């Protein structure tokens, strides 16, 4: 397996767990893998990026401009912000959720309209996932990240059993069941 996956979102959305599930997946595949994360900013609400690189041999842990095969975005504006990192024809898996940044909250700026259309112009393929709505149905808002992983896995052509095993390896046992439901729901619509 070979992929550069850029996970973007808003601090507090659980991008770290998502990257760790992908790390566990690389481990199961026996591939080399490097992850690069953002730490130490306890405050929520900032733009955050996590890099996941899987290949036979990975050098730099960082995904550069025009270097990502896939962008997995937990928030729409963040998807748009990082499109310069996508390779020509790359895939964007985007959560259909808007979180207003401070300049929008204070009325200094407007939240961009037509983001999904803009993404479609810039990517080979865009998959929109109503991850928040699904997480609400499941009854656990923290599962947004795992719904997204499900949708991503389907698009990477990863068999469900495999991504399920990676999930199991990455989450605490008592959280596995609810997250498995989330994974399945994401996989089904991916």
């Amino acid at each position, binding site marked *: 397996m070979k992929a550069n996956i850029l996970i973007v979102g*808003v*601090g507090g959305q659980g991008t770290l767990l998502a990257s760790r599930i992908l*790390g566990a997946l*690389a*481990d199961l595949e026996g591939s*080399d*893998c*490097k*992850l*690069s*994360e*953002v*730490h*130490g*900013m*306890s*405050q*929520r*609400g*900032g*733009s955050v990026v996590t*890099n996941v690189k899987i290949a036979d041999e*990975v*050098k*730099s*842990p*960082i995904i*550069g*401009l*025009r*270097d990502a095969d896939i962008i997995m975005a937990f928030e729409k*504006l*963040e998807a*748009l*912000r990082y*499109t*310069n990192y996508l390779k020509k024809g790359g895939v964007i898996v985007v959560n259909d959720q808007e979180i*207003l*940044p*401070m*300049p*929008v*909250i*204070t*009325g*200094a*700026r*407007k*939240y*961009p309209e037509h983001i999904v259309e803009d993404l479609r112009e*810039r990517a080979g393929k865009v998959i929109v996932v109503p991850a928040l709505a699904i997480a609400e149905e499941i009854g656990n*808002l923290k599962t947004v990240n795992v719904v997204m992983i499900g949708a991503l896995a389907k698009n990477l052509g990863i068999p469900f059993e495999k991504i399920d095993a990676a999930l199991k390896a990455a989450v605490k046992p008592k959280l596995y069941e609810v997250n498995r439901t989330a994974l399945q729901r994401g996989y089904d619509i991916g």
Partner: protein
Amino acid sequence: MKKLMLGNEAIARGAYEAGVKVVSAYPGTPSTEVSECIARYDEVYAEWAPNEKVAFEVAIGASFVGARSMVCMKHVGVNVAADPMFTAAYTGVNGGLVILAADDPGMHSSQNEQDTRFYARSAHIPMLEPSDSAEAKEFTKLAFELSEKYDTPVFVRTTTRLAHSQSLVETAERREVPLRPYVKDVSKYTMMPSSAIGRHVAVEAREDKLAADVNFFDVNREEMNDPSLGIVCSGVVYQYVKEALPEASVFKLGVVYPLPFGRLRDFASKVERLVVVEELEPFFQNQLKANGIDCEGKNLFSKQGEISVADIRLKLLGEKLDVEKQDLPVRPPVMCAGCPHRGVFYILNKLKVTVSADIGCYTLGAQPPLCAVDTVVCMGASVGIAHGFEKAAGREQSKRTVAVIGDSTFIHSGITGLINAVYNKSNITLVILDNSTTGMTGHQQHPATGLTLKQEPAKILDIVALCKTVGCDSVRVVDSYDLAEVEKTLKEELAADGVSVIVAKRPCALLDRNYPAPCTVSDCRKCGMCFKLGCPAIEKQADGSAKINASLCVGCGLCEKVCKFGAIKEG
């Protein structure tokens, strides 16, 4: 079996395997997780110290008495620890002593972009720099060996990208290292002029020997390939170089101080063009040039920020990427919904005072819409700066000046500034934002939280009693959420002469997450007051009215207090 590990976790693992016995540190991004990871090993004593200087001295003590010890800090922490560090280079060690110093090119989470490699050179302390997690572990073990072999503290330097990236690591068993016998030796451990003169000679001799020996270290590695381009690099930049220029010849430095000039000269003679690719200062480049090895470097790459693969391809291959200019609303980090600091900054902004602030989550009080910070320099500086304002501009200025500091930062280095203010008859007002944690760096314990790094119960430093004891004229405690009380107390203390301390108490909103129900808005009069709080849960609708995002609101009630129209109700 190989396991994915964070660079910081791998350093902790390396120290563990090397038989480290004592680790002391003060948190600081991107070094914090080293201590957090090592605290999980029962065989290792690990602690949070109140600051880096103390941590360093603890590690020196452990080393003198014969144990392998380590001290960890971010780059600016090295400034704080520099005093014991420079002289520890003279005393040398007994048990191996390793200094983990984490630089932050690009300032992901720092107030400056200093390059710690210069400390290695000016203090005459050797420095290793790993390029991935596997090396992070191995280099840490090597650092302990070199420390004992050459009788010197040894630096392991990381940068943010190494510290916070995960890659595969093969673990090994811990090797227990018994205490080396401690023998009283005034000429070595008692640094006063008569003995230090001799030790200075020893330092130079050791450095000369090491400078010769590093030419034979296999962590300094030549990778000959196409001779038309030779690159000198170290750390994570090596990975960028290998990805950007797979054809180039590379000299990878594992020891970044002292440099292996013999081998570098040999490498330079074998390549047609020699380029140093290093982040921050031209540390290698200038030394190569001073040793008569001609090279390029900072004529191509910036001294600011990080270097990327794309940068290297652009500068050395002329490959330009096609990227689009964007103008999107930025998304800076903000104080969390319910942050106890928010109300205090709201009042400071309302009172239009000058605020000498400090370093922590509350530094975000500088940003719109709060905009209530005038100065931030380094940890602890808020107190001294306010005192300097008063001594230079007088009482009229100090009636409009407030110093603001967090609890962890106050203990780190604010207390000495406060003692100075009392001693020198200042008239300052200091607010200590006591949120019962070191929030900024990810919620570490400190001497006033009642728990240690190993999560064991500890005595609780009484900040109020401490301020009284040092002689402050007034010490008052307020609830950070009680805006009226915060405002009234601030006004009274600004008017009062002498040194006043106001301890604003409320735990960080992320500590205990049993939140009350979210607030709601009805019949909003669009006056805009609540937006001035900068709470991420309060959203401005297109028609100018306020809406509270129930999934973010933690029901702190601040907005209810600022709404004069009673439009906001607690849930």
